[in-house]
């Protein structure tokens, strides 16, 4: 009854659904689909000066994607867009080439077991990519 991927921390993240919802007056918004699996993230973001003030997402997706969206909802507020770009890159590198995470992004380590399943990489990355899309053209 164990799974290498669905560890307690991931399940709790998904369940908590940090940041779920929709901002009323966002500075940026994006809808990203994963056409092959039907996952969808609707993301809104607001900025306060140089940093992300708030993130909200409506995620209709698998558990991995929901956990990733929740982690994003937990960690993005207070960070700058470029920090979040770095986080996305770190996540991608960990999945694709088992790169080691910097101490700052240890929270992403819960997704390390997903590296063995390339077909699921997109599930984890989708919310982070949605944030990038929503920030497109915004001050960095």
């Amino acid at each position: 009854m164990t799974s290498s991927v669905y560890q307690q921390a991931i399940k709790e993240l998904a369940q908590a659904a940090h940041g779920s919802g929709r901002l009323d007056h966002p500075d940026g918004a994006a809808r990203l689909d994963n056409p092959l699996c039907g996952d969808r993230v609707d993301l809104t973001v607001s900025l306060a000066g140089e940093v992300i003030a708030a993130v909200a997402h409506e995620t209709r997706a698998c558990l991995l994607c929901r956990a990733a969206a929740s982690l994003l909802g937990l960690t993005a507020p207070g960070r700058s867009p470029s920090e979040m770009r770095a986080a996305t890159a770190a996540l991608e590198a960990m999945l694709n080439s088992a790169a080691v995470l910097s101490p700052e992004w240890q929270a992403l380590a819960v997704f390390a077991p997903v590296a063995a399943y390339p077909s699921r990489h997109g599930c984890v990355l989708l919310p982070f990519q949605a944030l990038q899309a929503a920030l497109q053209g915004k001050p960095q």
Partner: protein
Amino acid sequence: MSLIEQLRAQFPFYAAANPCHYLDNAATSQIHQQALAAMAGQEASRANVHRSPYRLAEASTHAYGEARARVARFLNAAANDEVVFTSGATAALNLVAYSVGETLQAGDEVLISAAEHHSNFVPWLRLRERSGIRLRVLPLLPDGRIATASLAELVTERCRLIAITHCSNVTGAVTDVAAVVAAARKVGALVLLDGAQQVQHGPVDVQMLGADFYAFSSHKCFGPTGVGVLWGRQAVLERLPPFMTGGGMVGEVSLESLSFAAPPARFEAGTPPVAQAIGLGAAVDWLMTLPWAEIHQAESALLARLLAGLATFPAVRLIGPADLARRLPIVSFEVRGIHPHDVCQVLGERQVALRGGNHCAQPLFAALNSAGATRASLALYNDAADVDALLAGLEDALKVLS
């Protein structure tokens, strides 16, 4: 040896160390050893087909023609030349959409169903964009079967073609082809059957079916990837323009004049998938030797075991008809509150190979108001242990994921 053991002994997959419980046969089947050997043997010493009078070229041409003859027998085609080799079912369906499409006028109608795979849906959407045809869609019954009762209403005098699946890749429902053909005949429309899922479960008889076109892929009926078939009634093929053009399919070529070879060459531009077609020929040849009554009985028994097992899970909802008649062993189901990919992931970790999502059938899921499903698809080499592993794994998945 039991029948299943005999069958497994013919598949390289089962000779590998620790084969998984392979229940993703609707996506692709495992390859039969004869098909693999025929393909590899052809490749090892080869020449292009089309005429050249040296031994290897004569042998390639002969083997390729023999593959065509075998497929013709598998389908009970009236003539070998009714068999067109393509790169797969999708290419065969696009061939019809482009070639027949070229003969249609704005306002002409094509009828499809809401149960179609994207490969028999999107080409018609595109044709509608190109040519202004009207696209009509047969609705579904709540259990996913195509509502053939609506044929009377939807097949109008302007209907030129009915393009419909022989069997759904999601629900396993087998279409009432006789009703479709009868409706088409009344208005002189052509009938194209998408047989991608059907051929894995035995030879078909295109003459008995009464259709005008039949499309399928080799890799779903124990042959190699990279090849498929469009069967077409000779009189129909003869009056159609080509789709792709190039070497091997022309008569005269100049800036001023252009003529095409007779079918099937007209529809096989360029070097065909020679070795793959020869592999497919070996696969269907083998399929024609099997005791199908016995296999169908075994498949039905397994299907019943799977459906009964799934019925014990209150969280599981079946997508597709529950009765065993007119249905192939392709079983899609939702698990309440759990995404299909998470189900597949946990089962995959337990060596049960399933597939989850919308299975290239978004219109079907929209019609049935479902966001996606997990699918188990059985083939002739599956046994009770495969089904039981799925059921046990599903129990685990519910625990892991809740």
